[in-house]
C-alpha cells in the first residue's frame, strides 16, 4: 500500500487504491482504520477522521479488537517511562557546560559580517549609544578628557565622523552610565557615562542621542537610581515604540520595584491601544514579586477588563491568588462585566 495514503480519508483512500464503489464498504474502511489507529491512540487524528474512525469501530468488531490491542500495547509501553535525569546528573552537566562556556567563543562579528549581513545589521541596531560615543571619541582626538557638547549644534558638527570609527566593537566602549540629571530651567538633560574616561553629553529630551543613552541606561545599568532616572525621563517619550519596548523590558526584568512601578505608570496610557503593552501589564499582574506593582497593574487594566485575555487573567486571580486584596478586586471587576455565553 502506498504509505502516503495512511492519513487520507477513507473516500480518497478508496479512490487511490483503485477500489470500486462496491468495495467502498467494510474492506477499504477497515484497512484505513487500521492504518490510522496508532494516530488515534496518540491523539493525532483530525476531528473529522477521529469521528469517522469511532463510528466505524462501533460497528466493526475486528477493528474494535484492533483498537483495543493497540490501546493495550500503548498502555504496556507507557509503563516504561523515560527516567528524569537525577539532580546530581543535571547539576554535573550544568557545571561542565559552564566550564565549557568559559572557553567557548561565539561566532565572531566579522564572520557574521561576511556570511550574514542581516544579523550584523541587527547587532548594529542595538548600538546607538556606541555610535554617539564613537563620534565623541573621534573628535576628541583620542585624548582621555571630559568633553561637553551643547545641544544640536554639536550634532551637526560631528555628523561627518562616522566612517572613520566603524572598527570599534559595538557597545564595548561604554562602561556604564554614572548619572542622569535634568536642569529644571532649560530642560536640558545631562548624562555622564564612562568610556575610556567619563564623558558627558547634554541635550534636550527630544535629542536622539539623549534618548539612545537613556534607553541604554534603562537596560544596562547596575545603579538602580540611574535606571529610575532614565525610566522616569523615558516615560515622557512613551509614544515612541522603541521607548515603549524599553519600558516593557524594564517592567518585566528590572530587579528594582521602583523602576518597574515607574515603567508601569509610563505604560498605563497604552493599555487600551497597544496589545503588547496590555500583555506586558498582565504579565506583571500575574508574575511580579512586588504586590505594589501588581496592584498598580490591576488598576491599569481596569479600562480593558472586558478583553478576553484580561478576563481570563482576572478569573484565574479571583480563583486563586496569594493576595486577598487582588483576589477580591479581581472578583469585583469580574462582577461588573456582562455575562458571556
Amino acid at each position: 500500500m502506498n504509505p502516503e495514503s495512511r492519513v487520507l480519508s477513507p473516500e480518497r483512500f478508496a479512490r487511490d487504491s483503485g477500489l470500486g464503489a462496491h468495495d467502498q464498504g467494510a474492506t477499504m474502511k477497515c484497512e484505513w482504520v487500521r492504518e490510522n489507529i496508532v494516530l488515534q491512540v496518540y491523539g493525532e487524528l483530525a476531528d473529522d477522521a477521529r469521528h469517522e474512525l469511532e463510528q466505524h469501530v462501533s460497528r466493526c468488531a475486528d477493528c474494535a479488537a484492533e483498537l483495543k490491542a493497540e490501546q493495550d500495547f500503548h498502555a504496556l509501553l507507557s509503563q516504561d517511562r523515560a527516567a528524569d535525569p537525577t539532580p546530581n546528573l543535571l547539576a554535573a552537566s550544568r557545571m561542565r557546560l559552564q566550564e565549557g562556556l568559559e572557553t567557548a567563543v561565539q561566532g565572531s562579528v566579522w564572520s557574521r559580517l561576511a556570511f550574514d549581513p542581516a544579523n550584523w545589521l541587527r547587532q548594529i541596531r542595538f548600538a546607538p549609544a556606541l555610535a554617539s560615543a564613537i563620534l565623541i571619541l573621534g573628535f576628541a582626538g583620542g585624548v582621555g578628557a571630559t568633553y561637553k557638547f551643547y545641544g544640536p549644534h554639536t550634532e551637526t558638527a560631528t555628523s561627518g565622523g562616522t566612517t572613520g570609527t566603524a572598527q570599534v566593537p559595538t557597545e564595548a566602549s561604554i562602561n556604564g552610565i554614572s548619572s542622569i540629571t535634568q536642569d529644571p530651567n532649560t530642560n536640558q538633560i545631562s548624562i555622564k557615562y564612562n568610556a575610556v574616561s567619563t564623558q558627558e553629553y547634554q541635550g534636550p529630551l527630544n535629542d536622539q542621542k539623549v534618548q539612545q543613552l537613556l534607553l541604554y541606561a534603562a537596560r544596562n545599568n547596575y545603579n538602580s537610581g540611574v535606571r529610575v532616572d532614565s525610566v522616569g525621563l523615558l516615560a515622557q517619550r512613551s509614544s515612541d515604540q522603541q521607548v515603549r519596548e524599553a519600558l516593557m523590558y524594564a517592567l518585566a526584568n528590572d530587579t528594582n520595584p521602583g523602576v518597574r512601578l515607574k515603567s508601569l505608570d509610563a505604560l498605563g496610557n497604552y493599555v487600551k491601544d497597544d496589545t503588547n503593552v496590555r500583555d506586558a501589564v498582565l504579565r506583571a499582574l500575574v508574575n511580579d514579586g512586588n504586590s505594589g506593582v501588581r496592584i498598580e497593574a490591576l488598576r491599569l487594566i481596569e479600562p480593558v477588563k472586558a478583553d478576553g485575555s484580561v478576563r481570563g487573567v482576572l478569573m484565574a486571580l479571583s480563583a486563586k491568588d496569594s493576595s486577598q486584596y487582588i483576589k477580591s478586586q479581581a472578583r469585583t471587576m469580574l462582577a461588573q462585566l456582562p455575562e458571556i455565553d
Partner: protein
Amino acid sequence: MPASVWAMPLAVGGRVPSKAKGERAERVSGSHSENQDPARGRMAAQERRIDDTMLIREAQRGNRAAFEELVRNYDQAVLRLALHLTGTEHDAQDVYQDAFLKAYKNIGNFRFECSFYTWIYRIVTNLCLDHLRKRNVRKEDAPVAKDASGGEYDLLDQVADGRAGANPERDLMRRQLGARISGALEKLTPRERMVFELKHYHGLKLRTVGEILHTTEETAKNTLFRATQKLRGALSDMR
C-alpha cells in the same frame, strides 16, 4: 574577533535581571498544572516566547548570563531525551554539552523562524541521531545477551538502578519490561527511534516532530506507524 571583545559587554553591561525568576517560573508552571484555563495557558506560552526572545537577543549580543538562563529553561528536557536515547549518563552528558556549546556558538545565526525549543531540539536530535548511527555500527561489541524468546537485550539494563521501591517483585518486572522495550527500540532505525521517542516519551505533536527533524508531518506520521508496527511485532509475546 578575539574573545575578550565579546566578553566586554558581558562584564560591563551584561546584566540579566533575575527578579525572583525561580519564583516566577514556579508560579507559571504551577498555574499550568493546576489550572487548565486555556486563556491562562496561552498567556503562559506567550510569556515564555517573549521571555525567550529577550534572552536570545541578549545572548546574541554576547551576554552569557542570558544564554545560561535559556539553558536552564530547556536543559532538563534535553538531558532526559539524551539519557533515554543514549542509555548512559556519560553519553547523555556528552550530548548535552555538545548541544548547548553548539547552540552558544551559533546563537548569532538564530533567526526566530522557529521557536528556540524547536531549534535546540533540532541540534540535540541531530547529535543523538549521529550517536545512534555510530552505535549501530559498533553494535557487535555491546554486552548483549539473549532472553528466553531469543530477543537480545542489553546486559547493562539488568543492573539494579538504585531506585528500587518497596516491592522488589514489581521492580524486577518493571526492569525486565524496560529491558525488553529497550531491546525492541534498539531494532528501530535511528529515525524511527527518534520519531517514536519524541512522540511517545516526550509527547510532542507530530507537526513539531516534523519541524525538528526537517521533514513533513505526513512523513513523521508514517514513520511513527512503522515504528509502532515493529515494536508490536518485537513485543508480541508480552501482550
